[in-house]
C-alpha cells in the first residue's frame, strides 16, 4: 500500500513539475478545445479531439503559427449545459487565444456568453441548432450547416419518396428538437400531414410504446432527428414490429456504428449527412493518416474538426497577431479557399454560407450516397 501511495505521490509531483515547465514556456499559442470527452457523447467528442490533435501536429510540424507552436487545452463539456459553462470559464481564465469545438448545441449555447464576455474567437465545429444564431454575440463562427438547411433537405427528400404523412421523433435536446420542429413546420407549410411528433428520453432503450403508436398512426415515413445509438435501437424495433415505411435519420446518426447496432434493420434507411469522410473527395489522405494514428476510422465530424483548427490557425496567421478582434475580422473575411470539407465562408450571422448536406442510404452495412 505504501508503495502505491509513494508511486502516486511522485507521479503527481512529476506532473506538477512538468506542468509548471509547460506554463513557463509561454511563447506557445494556446487554443482551447471544448468537446464532450466524457458522458453520453464521448464517442464523437474523442473522435473530434483526435482530428484536432492531428491538425495541430501538422501545423506544428510545418513551423506553427506566427512562428510559435500551437498548444491545445482540451476542456470537457460532457454534452451538459452546466459542465460546458464550467469548461468555458476555465478556458477563458487560461487566456486562450481562441476556442474550437462545440458538439452538442444544448451545451454550446450557454458558453456563447462566456466567450462573448471574454471576447474570445470561437469556431463552432458541429453544433448547428438555429437557436445558436440569435445567441451569438458576434465572436462565434459556425462551420457546420445549420438545422434549417437540413430540414429543407429532409422535406425535399420525403417529397421525392412520395411520403404524405410523417412521424417525427426527437430527444428533447436543443439539436434534435430544433431539427424536429423545423422539419415539422416546413412539412406542414408544404401542405403535408404530421402523423405524430414524439419525444423520447436520451438513453432509454425501449421504444416499444412509440413504435406501437407510429404503427397505429399509419405514417408513411419516420424521421429520427437525434443521435445514432438510440436511433439504431429505434430502427431495430420499428423493423422488428414489421414497420414497412421509409425511415430516415438526421446528421447525428450517421455513425457507422448504427449498422453494428441495428444490423440488417438499417438496410434501406436514409440519412441526411454533413460531408462525412468517406464521401469527401479530398479526404483520402486524411482518412489514412487518422487511421494510422488512432487505429480506427475517423467519425463523421472528424473532417470538420480538422478544418476547425486549421481555420483558426489560418485566421491567427492572417491577423498577424493574437489580437481577438483581428482574428475575428480574419474569420469573417474567410472565403475563396478549399478546405477538407469544401469552401468555408460566412453569412452576416456568422453561419456557413452554403448547405453541405447530402442524402445517404444504408446498403450492405455501410452508408452509400443516394442520388435523387
Amino acid at each position: 500500500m505504501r508503495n502505491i501511495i509513494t508511486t502516486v505521490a511522485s507521479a503527481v509531483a512529476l506532473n506538477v513539475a512538468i506542468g509548471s515547465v509547460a506554463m513557463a514556456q509561454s511563447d506557445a499559442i494556446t487554443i482551447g478545445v471544448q468537446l464532450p470527452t466524457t458522458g453520453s457523447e464521448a464517442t464523437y467528442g474523442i473522435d473530434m479531439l483526435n482530428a484536432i490533435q492531428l491538425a495541430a501536429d501538422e501545423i506544428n510540424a510545418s513551423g506553427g503559427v506566427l512562428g510559435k507552436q500551437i498548444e491545445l487545452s482540451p476542456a470537457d463539456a460532457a454534452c451538459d449545459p452546466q459542465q460546458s459553462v464550467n469548461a468555458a470559464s476555465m478556458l477563458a481564465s487560461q487566456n486562450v487565444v481562441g476556442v474550437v469545438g462545440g458538439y452538442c448545441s444544448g451545451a454550446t449555447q450557454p458558453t456563447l456568453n462566456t466567450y462573448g464576455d471574454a471576447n474570445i474567437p470561437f469556431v463552432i465545429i458541429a453544433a448547428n441548432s438555429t437557436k445558436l444564431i440569435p445567441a451569438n454575440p458576434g465572436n462565434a463562427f459556425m462551420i457546420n450547416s445549420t438545422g434549417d438547411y437540413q430540414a429543407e433537405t429532409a422535406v425535399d427528400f420525403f417529397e421525392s419518396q412520395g411520403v404524405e404523412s410523417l412521424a417525427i421523433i426527437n430527444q428533447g435536446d436543443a439539436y434534435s428538437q430544433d431539427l424536429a420542429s423545423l422539419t415539422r413546420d416546413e412539412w406542414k407549410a408544404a401542405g403535408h400531414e404530421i402523423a405524430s411528433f414524439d419525444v423520447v428520453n436520451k438513453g432509454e432503450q425501449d421504444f416499444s410504446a412509440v413504435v406501437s403508436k407510429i404503427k397505429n398512426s399509419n405514417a408513411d415515413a419516420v424521421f429520427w432527428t437525434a443521435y445514432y445509438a438510440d436511433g439504431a435501437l429505434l430502427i431495430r424495433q420499428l423493423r422488428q414490429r414489421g414497420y414497412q415505411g421509409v425511415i430516415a435519420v438526421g446528421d447525428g446518426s450517421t455513425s457507422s456504428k448504427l449498422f453494428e447496432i441495428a444490423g440488417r434493420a438499417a438496410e434501406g434507411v436514409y440519412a441526411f449527412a454533413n460531408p462525412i469522410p468517406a464521401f469527401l473527395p479530398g479526404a483520402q489522405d486524411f482518412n489514412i493518416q487518422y487511421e494510422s494514428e488512432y487505429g480506427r476510422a475517423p467519425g463523421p465530424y472528424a473532417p470538420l474538426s480538422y478544418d476547425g483548427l486549421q481555420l483558426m490557425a489560418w485566421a491567427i496567421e492572417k491577423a498577424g497577431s493574437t489580437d481577438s478582434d483581428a482574428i475575428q475580422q480574419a474569420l469573417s473575411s474567410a472565403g475563396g479557399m478549399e478546405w477538407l470539407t469544401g469552401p468555408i465562408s460566412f453569412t452576416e450571422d456568422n453561419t456557413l454560407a452554403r448547405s453541405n448536406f447530402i442524402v445517404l442510404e444504408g446498403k450492405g452495412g455501410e452508408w452509400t450516397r443516394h442520388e435523387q
Partner: protein
Amino acid sequence: MSFFDSFFQQLINGLVLGSFYALVALGYTMVFGVIKLLNFAHGDFYMAGAFVGFGALSLVSGALGAGWMGIFVAMLLAMMAIGCLGVVIERIAYHPMLNAPRLSILITALAVSLVLQNAALALTGGQYTAFSTDIGFGGFEVGNLFISHNQIILVATAAVLMIALELGVSRTMYGRAMRAVSIDKDMCRMMGINVAGVIAVTFFIGSSLAAAAGTMAGAYYGSIWYFMGFLIGLKAFTAAVIGGIGSIPGAMLGGLILGLLESFGTNIEFIGSEWKDVFTFAILILVLVFKPTGLLGKSEVERM
C-alpha cells in the same frame, strides 16, 4: 387498430419494460433493507453485468451458439462475476463506513458509481458496443397484437428470478437471517448471526440480479455502453420507492407499475409523449403523498 388493440399492445410493452425495472429495483430495495444505504452504484452493476455478459457470450457462443441457450449461460456467468464484484465493493467501500453518518456512505455510493462508469469509459473508449446475438424477431400475431418470443422469454426469466428470490427470502435460513438483519443488526449479532456474511450475500444477490437484467437488456435491445446504467438506475430507484423501499414484493410491483405507466403515458391522446415523464412522476408524487412509505412499505416507528 382499435382502442383495445392499442391498450393490450401497450400492456405488453409495459410488462417487458417493467420486468427490467423490477429486476434492478430489487437490488436497490434489498441493500436498503439490510444496511439502509441507497446504493447509487446499483445502475452501474447493471451496466457492468451487460459488459461481462457480452464477454461471456463471445466465449460460450462457440460451443452453445449465440441464441437464448448461450445467452442464459452468459447471463449466469455475468451474475456470478457481478455478484462477486458487488461483494468486493461492499467490503472495500461500504463496510468500513457502516457506522459512519448516513450522508458519508451515500456520497461513497455516488463515488463508486462514478468509478465504475469511468472505468468502463476508459476500457471501452466511450464506444457503443453492438451486442450481436442470433435471437430472431419471430413472434405471435394475435389479431393486430404482436408478442415476440423474446418478450415472452424475458418476462418469464424475470419472473423465475423474482419467484426464486421471494422463496429464498421467505423460506430459507439465509432469507430469515436477512430479514432479521434488516430489522435489528445489533440484536442479530447478539443472537450469533453472521451479520457481515448476511450483508455480503445480500450484495451478491442484488448485484447479480442487476447483472441478469443488464445481460438480457443487452441481448434484447442490441447495444451496450458505459452509461447505460444511469437512467435505469434512476428509474429502478423510483420503482423501489413507489413499491416501498425495503420491501421485495414492493420493488417488483413498483417496477411493473412504472413500466406500465411509461408505456401508457406515451399514448395518452391529445398530449404528446413529452408529457410521459410528467405523468409518471406525478403519480409517484401522489403515491408518496398518500402513502409515504410506498405501496407495500411498512411504516417505521423510530423508538428512542
